[in-house]
């Protein structure tokens, strides 16, 4: 605790960082199980400290509290100025609670899941490092320091996707994830530099954008008008968010990232890291409100991605890939929420999604674990009986994902859809596409349930009952997946309505958009009813298509092996195959970027070796040629030398005496 009563914020990321350091330095002297315990206690302590900070923030006397803490000056070069400093406000509170809370549960789960793995120590070291980096990301008080966490989580994601490093595909997936997100990071960095130039990027004085928005021309080397620059900055930041949050068109890395261990998928690629883009846009909400074009782009990217990923999820056969696409889709909803000015609702969807998606991933992990690593849903089936507990929690998560009424996912998604219609940034097209996506979501979610847990058992493995640690922690998540929605009931409900929005008001204030038109509360109730109908319709369609005796089941026609080709085509219908391959984005990128880069690289190397070095080698060869020519005179015969000297002397004499007149 510091002197002014603000709790020591730096402790929150420092605890897991210290855990990681201890594991990396010392754990090789210990039993591998110790690493898991250290990691869990580090994250657990961090969570407790977050609780303390949150309690103090909420009960802080006085107006609009916001904790800040500066440790030391980090960067000081012209416009690039930044501190190592922390900020704790309501947005940070939400994110830190999820990161440490859900993180703690996933750490607990991992202790059981990773038992006996070769890289157990390494795994927990990276997990702790990840939590530390993620906490820096959400607690930094300026964008440069945030970028440290931003890249840090990318690194840890890379390590953990490549955890089973002996398989080439996993390394390829890890590299792909790192490079694609890094491409986004470059946009982010340029955006941050631009923002730094325009208004400073400490989150405390984002209001500087208001000044820029009014300028006709911004001085210093840019020559553009203020609003245009703000739009560019907003788009650049959106580029960063696209990379990290797997939004179109930089989404291709996330499905492949499922190569990592399942707890990693739950923590990094579902609950926390991939939502960094949501955090980023929410933090820079001032900028986006100043630049409506950028905000519209955000909304379009969000709803487009939500729809895209939902269509892909319909036909996937790998249980984790289905969940990965659903993650992309759900983040699309969050981004859509931000894009229509409903910043707090984007965060609310993040909050509920973190619980139910982590739950789904962990439960999927338990299933995979029970089936000795099998991930293909068509090789599962009928697990309802043998994995009773897992089935129940999975069902809770699925209900929330599909948006069945009164679950957490229902309230958060429905609110976003309503705002996408009714705020001044919204329009019916966004709303309609969002609703269609909601239908698809319900279909693929229950397809998963029916194929995996119902019907006959298709697995050849003996299903063994998972140990308690693989199921018990999930109950906590299941509780939140079902009931977290009650934190923000719709406006038309007389009690507890819009609690969440009020809670975040100190941060977003008047920048937050509000519904207007479309019948107010009545319209909202109608939209909620529509959501209900849509999700139930999805459930019904899924039952029709995939219930155990269904005749029209679109099941893959051919076996999909472990090593997939670059253009897998398991279905008879080419549309299904196209969806299965994620709209062939990978193939296009391969042709447009990967292969040209390889050629460019090979060419550079060749040019260097042959042409540029060749020029120097050529000059060396010329010197060598002259050398061998002159060598002919060096025959070692003294009298010849004397003769040459004699004639030389004669010639010299002649020139000296008779050359004067020339």
């Amino acid at each position, binding site marked *: 605790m510091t002197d002014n009563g603000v709790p020591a914020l730096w402790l929150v990321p420092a605890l897991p960082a210290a855990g990681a350091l201890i594991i990396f330095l010392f754990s090789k002297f210990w039993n591998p199980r110790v690493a898991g315990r250290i990691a869990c206690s580090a994250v657990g302590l961090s969570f407790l400290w977050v609780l303390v900070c949150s309690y103090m923030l909420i009960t802080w006397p006085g107006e609009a509290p916001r904790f800040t803490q500066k440790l030391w000056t980090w960067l000081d070069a012209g416009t690039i100025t930044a501190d190592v400093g922390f900020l704790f406000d309501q947005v940070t509170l939400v994110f830190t609670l999820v990161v440490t809370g859900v993180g703690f549960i996933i750490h607990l789960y991992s202790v059981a899941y990773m038992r006996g793995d070769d890289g157990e120590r390494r795994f927990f070291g990276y997990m702790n490092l990840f939590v530390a980096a993620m906490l820096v990301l959400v607690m930094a008080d300026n964008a440069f320091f945030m970028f440290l966490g931003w890249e840090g989580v990318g690194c840890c994601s890379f390590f953990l996707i490549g955890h089973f490093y002996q398989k080439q595909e996993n390394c390829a997936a890890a590299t792909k994830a790192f490079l694609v997100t890094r491409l986004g990071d470059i946009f982010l960095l340029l955006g941050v530099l631009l923002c730094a130039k325009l208004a400073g990027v400490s989150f405390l004085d984002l209001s500087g954008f208001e000044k820029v928005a009014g300028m006709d021309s911004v001085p210093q080397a840019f020559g553009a008008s203020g609003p245009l620059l703000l739009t560019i900055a907003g788009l650049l930041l959106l580029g960063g968010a696209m990379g990290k949050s797997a939004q179109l068109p930089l989404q291709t890395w996330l499905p492949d990232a499922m190569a990592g261990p399942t707890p990693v998928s739950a923590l990094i690629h579902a609950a926390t890291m991939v939502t960094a883009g949501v955090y980023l846009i929410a933090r820079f909400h001032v900028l986006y409100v100043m630049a409506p074009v950028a905000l519209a782009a955000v909304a379009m990217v969000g709803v487009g991605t939500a729809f895209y990923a939902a269509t892909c999820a319909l036909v996937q056969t790998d249980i984790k890939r289905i969940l990965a696409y659903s993650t992309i889709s759900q983040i699309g909803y969050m981004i859509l929420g931000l894009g229509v000015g409903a910043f707090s609702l984007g965060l609310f969807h993040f909050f509920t999604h973190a619980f139910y998606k982590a739950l789904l991933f962990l439960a999927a992990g338990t299933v995979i674990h029970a089936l000795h690593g099998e991930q293909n849903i068509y090789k599962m089936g009928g697990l309802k009986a043998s994995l009773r507990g897992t089935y129940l929690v999975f069902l809770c998560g699925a209900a929330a994902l599909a948006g069945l009424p009164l679950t957490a996912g229902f309230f958060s998604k429905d609110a976003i859809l309503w705002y996408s219609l009714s705020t001044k940034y919204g329009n019916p097209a966004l709303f309609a596409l969002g609703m269609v996506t909601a239908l698809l979501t319900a279909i693929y979610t229950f397809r998963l349930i029916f194929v995996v847990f119902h019907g006959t058992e298709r697995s050849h493995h003996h299903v063994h009952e998972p140990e308690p640690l693989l199921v018990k922690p999930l109950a906590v998540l299941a509780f939140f997946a079902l009931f977290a929605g009650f934190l923000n009931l719709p406006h038309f409900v007389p009690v507890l309505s819009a609690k969440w929005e009020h809670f975040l008001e100190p941060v977003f204030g008047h920048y937050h958009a509000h519904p207007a038109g479309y019948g107010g509360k009545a319209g909202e109730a109608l939209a909620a009813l529509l959501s209900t109908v849509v999700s139930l319709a999805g459930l019904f369609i899924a039952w029709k298509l995939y219930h155990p005796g269904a005749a029209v089941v679109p099941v893959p026609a051919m076996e999909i092996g472990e090593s997939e080709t670059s253009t897998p085509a398991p279905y008879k219908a080419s549309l299904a195959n196209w969806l299965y391959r994620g709209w062939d984005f990978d193939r296009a990128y391969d042709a447009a970027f990967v292969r040209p880069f390889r050629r460019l690289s090979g060419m550079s190397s060749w040019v260097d070796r042959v042409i540029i070095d060749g020029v120097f080698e050529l000059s060396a060869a010329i010197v060598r040629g002259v050398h061998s020519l002159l060598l002919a005179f060096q*025959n*070692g*015969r*003294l*009298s010849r030398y*004397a*003769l040459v000297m*004699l004639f030389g002397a004669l010639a010299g004499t002649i020139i000296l005496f008779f050359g004067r007149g020339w």
Partner: protein
Amino acid sequence: MFPANEALILSAILFSLGVIAFIVRRNLLYTLMSVEIMLNAAGLAFVAGSAIHGQPDGQVFFMFILPVAAAEVAIGLALALLIFKRCKTLDLWAIARIKEE
């Protein structure tokens, strides 16, 4: 009177003889002797010059040339002896060939 002009002519003839001998003879001993002749021819030219100008510089130079020539002969003969021991010949061309091989 010192016949300076004649002495210069003698010096030129001696030097030319030395050069020609140096070029045509292949035996190391003769080569050394021809070098010696050239040196002494140069010394004679110095003395003659000294006489012409009536100054002692030239003779002083000759005093320097004498020990240099003596040292050269001493080292040269010693080398010649060693070379003969090793190569069994004093034919310079033959020695050069041996070196190349």
